[in-house]
């Protein structure tokens, strides 16, 4: 398997490799793992099966036929409708920083490409951009992805990775919930398949909108999926929650996720499902 195409900007060759270039540490079980093995395993820990968060490029590379993924609305960007500031300063500054850090303009990349020859539209959220939060730009891009799928009679796949709505855009971010769902209603009206992939984390306003209305719901192992936060719930019910509460596996047992798919099998599974959905 080599879904991770080599990075274009390979590290400059230095005399002796540094320690952090050779070793990495699993964020979950803290095991030390060869960086090469870690990457070969698609950032999944062999020991504890933890699935590390991926960037949107890594996901696109992982799932799409090489070089086929093309963004459809790369210019849609973050907005600051509230001129919002919090204790750490203006939202605008934070957004600009996030752009610089990620090379993205919003928390999602939306485009179209091929999975083993099947054309599909795809929205890929990226947790690095402000925790993958759902804001006006995110909602707009997800909507444009749905409209593109309708126009080109393609299926739509959304990969969620989000802590929820972006408070900094206030009520405007809340409205991205109905907005994205309204777009998916149009997709349904056009009788096109919609696959929702939930990765760690898929919570709050994202779980309560586009992530939960798929024809098929797939989750990566052990992803956190839920509406309210664990702490809020524990405060409400004055009880400790079980350890596996709001895990992908828990969601399967409670009827909200069709299947858990390991990252290495995701591309093949999507291909199979798209075939059942009649796509070619």
């Amino acid at each position: 398997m080599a879904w991770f195409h080599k990075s274009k900007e390979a590290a400059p060759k230095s005399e002796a490799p540094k320690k952090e270039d050779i070793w990495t540490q699993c964020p979950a079980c803290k095991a030390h793992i060869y960086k090469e093995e870690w990457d070969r395993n698609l950032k999944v820990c062999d020991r504890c099966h933890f699935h590390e968060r991926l960037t949107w490029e890594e996901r696109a590379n992982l799932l799409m036929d090489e070089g086929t993924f093309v963004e459809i609305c790369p210019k849609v960007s973050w907005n600051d409708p509230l001129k919002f500031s919090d204790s750490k300063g203006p939202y605008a500054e934070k957004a600009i920083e996030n752009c610089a850090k990620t090379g993205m303009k919003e928390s999602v990349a939306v485009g179209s490409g091929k999975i083993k020859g099947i054309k599909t539209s795809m929205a890929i959220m990226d947790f690095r951009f402000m925790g993958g939060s759902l804001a006006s730009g995110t909602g707009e891009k997800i909507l444009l992805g749905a409209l593109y799928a309708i126009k080109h009679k393609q299926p739509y796949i959304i990969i969620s990775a989000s802590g929820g709505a972006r408070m900094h855009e206030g009520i405007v971010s809340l409205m991205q919930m109905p907005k994205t769902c309204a777009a998916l209603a149009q997709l349904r009206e056009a009788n096109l398949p919609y696959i929702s992939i939930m990765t760690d984390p898929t919570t709050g306003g994202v779980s309560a909108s586009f992530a939960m209305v798929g024809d098929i719901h797939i989750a990566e192992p052990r992803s956190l999926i839920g509406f309210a936060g664990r702490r809020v719930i524990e405060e409400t019910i004055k009880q400790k929650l079980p350890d596996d509460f709001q895990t992908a596996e828990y969601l399967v047992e409670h009827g909200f996720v069709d299947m858990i798919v390991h990252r290495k099998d995701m591309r093949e599974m999507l291909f199979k499902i798209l075939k059942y959905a009649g796509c070619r």
Partner: protein
Amino acid sequence: MSLDFEKEVADVEAKIAEFKTQNPEPTGVLVKELNRLETERSDMLKKIYASLTPWQTVQVARHPERPLIRDFIQGICSEFIELHGDRLFGDDHGMIGGFAMIDDHRVMIIGQQKGKDLEEKIKCNFGQACPEGYRKALRLMKLAEKFNLPVITFIDTPGAFPGRDAEERGQAEAIARNLLEMSALKTPIIALVTGEGGSGGAIGIGVGDIVLMLSNAVYSVISPEGCASILWRDGTKADEAANALKITSKSILQLKIIDEIIPEPVGGAHRDYAGTMKATKKVLLKHITTLKKITPRKLSSRRFEKFAAMGRFK
């Protein structure tokens, strides 16, 4: 009950009460004095309510005497036939609904009920609906669609219930499903935020052709307290958060998220039920009449366009 910032009104009101006790049947100069006191009270209220801060508005929106959906139904409708249950799991008392008559218009009314006394509050989960509440709401909307009835939702909730059971029964799925189905529903929908428009729990019944707010209602992606504790790392900074979040009807109208504000009587809806009902009924009737003239297919495509445009800039 009077709020913090109404202290001076409370003083005048105490005076009026005392005056009335001492002068059960005032005449002449005493009538004049009473009128003066009442005018003073009214002017004070006008002044205070004309310049409420967002955080003060939150307190008015949450006022324990603020009219609830059952008050609105009683005040606006000549008939109400309550319908129960989601046909799947239960009947959520925190989300009620049924057939209702407003003048000669037959409609479906749906909304959160917070409860008046403690017993009812507990039964209603303080207006925090569970998945079965959102599913009941959807069932009734689908029924309204079949029967060609306009849907009117009354939104008043701190948020969807954040309980373990609610989570396990699919709070996220239930809200998401409603958002999708409401956007495509082939009958008019009017959504009115009467008190607290709390986040996903509010929008879960809030996808309307026309979205309205009472003037002192608030509508927010997160409670000011929640926002403060996350972004200010200090729950007591709720007033700052309330400012920053732009949650008042005026701000929300400016952001083009709602279509119209229904003005409350002087001193807030809780001070004058009759006036509140009259104002609300008038605006609802206007929109019902207009929306009924649009074909169902046209309605749902307009509704899509309306929400698609929210948060689309330049």
